[in-house]
């Protein structure tokens, strides 16, 4: 789906990434680890069309995104990519609800916007805080709002940059579980840049960046002593559901009925 081919990136004299090749397949969780400053976030920036690599290509469905103009690349980012960050990065002047809604406003093809937002609010258990401003929310709440904003436009890929880096262990467990649920129920692929080894429990692929090079890693037999014991949905409502807009062709014949999936 999204393929990085022979990408290198230098900042002045410093070579950050060297000849990276990497593919994100549908419905997968891809973990990238590495030391601080190894170029993990830079790779996310390149994959999302925000940092043009020094050399190499980023292909989406076979098209090089850096051959597109800024307008088309912005559309691509709005529609196809969702972002989750360590520090949540919500717009401080907007309420949680407005933050979730924002990407749909600038998406000319969005439909059922408010229904989708309402569904996500219920799905992520945000009803109580939805009219609050970000400064009044806890870390876990902020990250759930950020996740809702990331997936509201039904993206193909969510890129997460240290999504649990600012959360306590229990909340981090919930977020990891939530990623797994979203992958299963919504069919969204994840690229997660993290130091958190518990993500390996839900990962399909695992890479490390060392010496500016991306190296595929085998899964360790014992990845964590503190693996999440329950899924996010166990904690929330035990009933994972799809976003109403993400439906199979058969399901789309009944547009008003919300489909419940296991």
């Amino acid at each position, binding site marked *: 789906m999204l393929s990085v081919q022979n990408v290198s990136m230098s900042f002045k004299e410093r070579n950050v990434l060297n000849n990276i090749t990497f593919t994100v397949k549908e419905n997968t969780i891809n973990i990238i680890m590495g030391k601080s400053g190894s170029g993990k*976030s*830079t790779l*996310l*920036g390149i994959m*999302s069309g*925000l*940092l043009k690599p020094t050399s190499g290509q980023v292909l989406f469905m076979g098209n090089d995104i850096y051959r597109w103009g*800024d*307008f088309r690349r*912005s*559309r*691509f*980012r*709005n*529609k196809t990519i969702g*972002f989750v*960050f*360590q*520090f949540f*990065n*919500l*717009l*401080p*002047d907007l309420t949680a609800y407005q933050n979730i809604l*924002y*990407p749909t*406003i*600038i*998406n*000319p093809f969005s439909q059922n916007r408010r229904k989708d937002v309402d569904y996500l609010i219920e799905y992520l258990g945000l009803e109580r805080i939805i009219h609050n401003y970000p400064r009044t929310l806890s870390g876990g709440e902020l990250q759930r709002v950020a996740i809702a*904003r990331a997936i509201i436009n039904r993206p193909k890929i969510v890129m997460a*940059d240290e999504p649990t880096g600012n959360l306590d262990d229990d909340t981090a467990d919930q977020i990891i579980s939530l990623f797994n649920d979203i992958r299963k129920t919504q069919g969204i692929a994840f690229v997660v840049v993290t130091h958190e080894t518990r993500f390996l429990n839900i990962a399909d692929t695992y890479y490390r960046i060392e010496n500016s090079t991306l190296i595929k890693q085998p899964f360790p037999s014992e990845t964590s002593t503190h693996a999440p014991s329950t899924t996010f949905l166990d904690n929330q409502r035990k009933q994972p559901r799809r976003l109403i807009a993400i439906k199979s062709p058969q399901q789309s014949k009944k547009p008003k009925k919300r489909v419940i999936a296991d």
Partner: protein
Amino acid sequence: MFYILRNIALITKDSIRNIFRTMISSFGIIILIAFVVMYIPFRESVKRYLETNIFGKLAINEIVIYPPNVRKNNIITPSSSISGEISAEKIRRIAAFPEIQTMHKVVRLDFKTKLHISLFGYTRYPYVPICGVSKEYLKGKIIGWQNFKNTQPVPIVAPKLVIEMLNEFLVIKNMPPLEENALKGLPLNILIFEPPMENRPEKELQIPSTLLGFADVFPFPTVLVPSEYITSFAEMKRKELGLKKRGYKYIMAIATVKEQKYLPEVARRIQNMGLVVESQQDIASKTNKALEIIDRFSYAVIGILLFITIISIFNSYLNIVYIRSYSFSLKRIIGVSKLRIILEFVLESAIVGTLLGAIGFFLGDRMLSYASQKIGQWIPALRNIVVTSSSENLLWFSIFFSIVISSLSALLPAIFASNINLFKASRK
């Protein structure tokens, strides 16, 4: 459609949210607009005052045109014009210049003429040239002049020298001298001599006339009558006697130009026709130069103010971009294009420009109104100046000017905003 509407709503909400900060940043526009709003009407009022009250009285727009013979050895002697002539064709050409506003032609009756004066039983017959000028030229200067109906007695205006001559004569005869007003209305006769013809000698015509007043209108001794009388008399005699000559000639013309700035060019063109021109060109050119210097100085002040305002607003907008870099970068990540970031920022500054332009206009208008009341106290020389308040056009100009300044100042910061190192900014 809904997409456009919801985005307009979003941009408007965003602008309103940030408008207070942006307005404070662009505060300098108010001062600049207020200054412009005060300066333009004040300058116009001063210019109008100078033109109508000072230059108008100096007849600064006036050109006096003489025949070529008045220039002798490069010295102009206007009194010589009485014996010269300006051709009718040249008079017509000058009158047709687009820059000419009015033109008064001075004509001289081309017959031998005398004045028959009888006072206290004494009679005199001095030779006096009879000249004519249009009624409008002396309108308001000589009472009764404008009511001339081309009937007899013919109204005449004598040079002030005549009063002196009469009184000298009366003193010699041991009689008291007379005041100017006592001589007004004195009945006189104009004696016009028809030239001798083949079958008859010279013939004297007596034309009854009345002395309307005294004035040294022209730089030569002459008795003035309305030019209509001279032209109709000459036409009548030309037909009656079968004369080849027109019977009168143009000896001088007084023209006014529409604006002082045309004076040098019009004078040059008339001189090129071989005529002699006397005007207040020097005063006019010096005045124009003074006004130009004042204008240039004022424009320089406005230019410097404009420059400082733009730089200060630009700097403030850069600060705003820095403060809001977090939200700009987030918007870019969420999928807002660079162009949209630029447009949003410039639009926001244009909305602010509209508000500040209107505020600046009303502030300037109030200050102008106050200053126009106090100007006489501050500068006594300008106490007669009537400063008219700003027009509606100036309001629209102020708003437009303010929008342009605000938007231009915001353009570069907006481009910076759209080019922030987004991915790094988002990791704050």
